[in-house]
């Protein structure tokens, strides 16, 4: 009931995040072995990681909404965007803002190409075929990157404007750590408004509901699908750029783990719902950091956290936190 009132509403997303944050802070204070600044530092770390996950998770969820398929190549588009960023800064000597724009413009071309070559020919085929095609596209990108760029990590160039450290009391964080949540929030607001109010956004929702009917009603279905891939790839590119500035090592396989986690984030939040993807991203990012903070003994299992959350959600609420029941979605 409450879910229905707040569905697709920005306030609900913020509300849930704040509630989770409060619960965690309360819990940490309860067990009482953590000082305020240390907890605050953990929260800053978690929010910054969570908003990165959220950015990439939106891409998964958007493609899923439109095509009801999991775009496994999304994580590799993210990886390719990092190579684009690496080369535009080191080889072409671009200033970072220009590099970011170029990367955000070039990455969607890869996304479009994959959609065109791997997914569009299978439009009428069973969902499983598309899924296998997506896995194939993912392997192709990973191996192509290994072949072209080598398996060794490339050092993402240092961008002082983003990596400069700010100290507030004893809490330290990089500029990029606050830039990411701001970008994520801004993109969330723009996307939600776009989907609900712009004409193309309405067409997008129509295609998501039933693309046969949408086509009959005169919607350019292929155009809408391409647009979805463009938006998803731009988000992956922006996320990738920020990721590179924060964790400066670029390898062909680097997309795999973040990709899996962001996919889990999208499912946990309710796949098909953009607010859900953001909430899922925050739950995973914060959860991962706080599990290490509160239970140092199991810090080696932090990657498992995402998958434990996935299992729990699938058992308790298979449609995800904000997702609508499966029957409605077909």
């Amino acid at each position, binding site marked *: 009931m409450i879910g229905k009132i707040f569905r697709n509403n920005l306030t609900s997303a913020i509300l849930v995040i704040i509630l989770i944050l409060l619960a965690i802070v309360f819990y940490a204070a309860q067990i009482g072995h953590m000082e305020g600044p*240390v907890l605050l530092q953990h929260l800053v770390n978690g929010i910054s990681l969570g908003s990165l996950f959220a950015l990439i998770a939106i891409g998964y969820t958007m493609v899923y909404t439109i095509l009801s398929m999991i775009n496994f190549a999304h994580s590799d588009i993210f990886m390719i965007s990092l190579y684009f960023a690496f080369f535009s800064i080191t080889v072409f000597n671009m200033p970072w803002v220009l590099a970011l724009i170029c990367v955000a413009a070039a990455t969607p071309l890869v996304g479009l190409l994959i959609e065109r070559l791997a997914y569009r020919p299978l439009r009428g085929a069973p969902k499983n075929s598309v899924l296998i095609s997506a896995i194939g596209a993912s392997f192709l990108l990973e191996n192509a990157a290994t072949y072209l760029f080598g*398996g060794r990590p490339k050092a993402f160039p240092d961008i002082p404007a983003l990596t400069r450290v700010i100290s507030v009391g004893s809490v330290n964080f990089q500029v990029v750590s606050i830039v990411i949540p701001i970008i994520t929030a801004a993109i969330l607001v723009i996307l939600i408004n776009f989907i609900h109010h712009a004409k193309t956004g309405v067409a997008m929702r129509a295609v998501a509901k039933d693309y046969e009917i949408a086509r009959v009603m005169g919607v350019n279905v292929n155009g809408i699908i391409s647009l979805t891939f463009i938006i998803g790839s731009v988000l992956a590119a922006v996320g990738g750029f920020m990721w590179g500035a924060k964790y400066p*090592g670029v390898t062909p396989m680097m997309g795999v783990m973040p990709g899996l986690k962001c996919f889990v984030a999208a499912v946990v939040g309710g796949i098909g719902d953009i607010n859900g993807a953001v909430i899922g991203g925050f739950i995973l990012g914060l959860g*991962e950091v706080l599990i290490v903070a509160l239970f140092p003994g199991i*810090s080696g299992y932090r990657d498992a956290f995402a998958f434990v959350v996935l299992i729990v959600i699938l058992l308790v609420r298979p449609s995800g936190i904000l997702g609508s029941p499966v029957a409605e979605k077909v």
Partner: protein
Amino acid sequence: MKKSISIMLTALLFVSVLPGCQSSGTNPDVIKIGVFEPLTGDNAGGGELEVEGVKLANELFPEVLGKKVELVIVDNKSDKAEAATAAARLVEQDKVNAIIGSWGSSLSMAAGNIVKDAKVPAVGASCTNPQVTLNNDYYFRVCFIDPFQGTVMANYAISKLGAKTAAIIQEVSNDYSVGLASFFKDSFILNTGAEDSIVDTENYQTGDKDFSAILTNIKAKNPDVIFAPGNFTESALIIKQARQLGIETPFLGGDTWETPDFLSVGGADVNGAAFSTFFDKSMTTTDAAKTFLSEYEKKNPGKEPAAVTALGYDAYILILDAITRANSAEGPAIRDALAQTLNFQGVTGSTTLDANGDAVKDAVIKTVEDGVFTYLDYVAAQ
């Protein structure tokens, strides 16, 4: 139509398999040495350095017993499962006479039973975990092992840095890191005499990128020194993120740090990081070392050879020496000759293999100064 295409494809498949069959047979005029290293994946930087040394040695010494030595280089992809497959390929398909590798103890261990069952001797260049050669008659190595390395770094931390407390960050998915961390811990506790001198132990997985949480935990414990042996990329990111969190504590590590990737990923933040390793060019005590350094300089002007490159070179010349002594290229004969290695003069000093097949060697401590690995100290073998 469809049927004819499938028949054609099947025919094509057979044709493409045939030459493979022919080449896999043994050619009596060639001695094959398998090189089994990570060339892609998380450990690629280390594997490439070792292959560099093996290739250089092969160019200088291309023949043994009057036969040409052929290198069969396979990529174990920094993955334990792939490592077993790669090793099996070397012994079954390529039928190599001996194997060199691998960078990374876990990867070497994955090949352990395969080389043992096939009776093909393997010589590890820089895998330092004791388990690699333990209970395996067919695995040898030309480097020291981690109990020594852990002691070296613990002593360095206590006597040179005056550390009374230490924190450990270990890569739990890597046997090398966990083993070395535990030897450091034992030695540190023994030498400080305080059970609680290790104030914190944090874990991460190979491939992790975000270490802010474990570092925030460590910052709260305020240790005098942080020991973080592990893969080079992750280690560089750990140090970088530690500095960003305002942690000024010195970082210590192990031999795996000596790769160009550690410097390029870590940038200015890894300056001052110190680690133990096997070789420095100032240790030119043997003729082999002089040859190695001058030939390396010829091929890579102005570049300093990494210790693992020297060890890759040593592993190759040691195998050739064993083949000469055995006067045979059969696996068991090479194995017996390797086991009897006594005062073999390699690049990294004199090599004598003990009952386990491990070398006893001196250690070097290096640090990073202005983005370059620099010699810091020398510790004689015990």
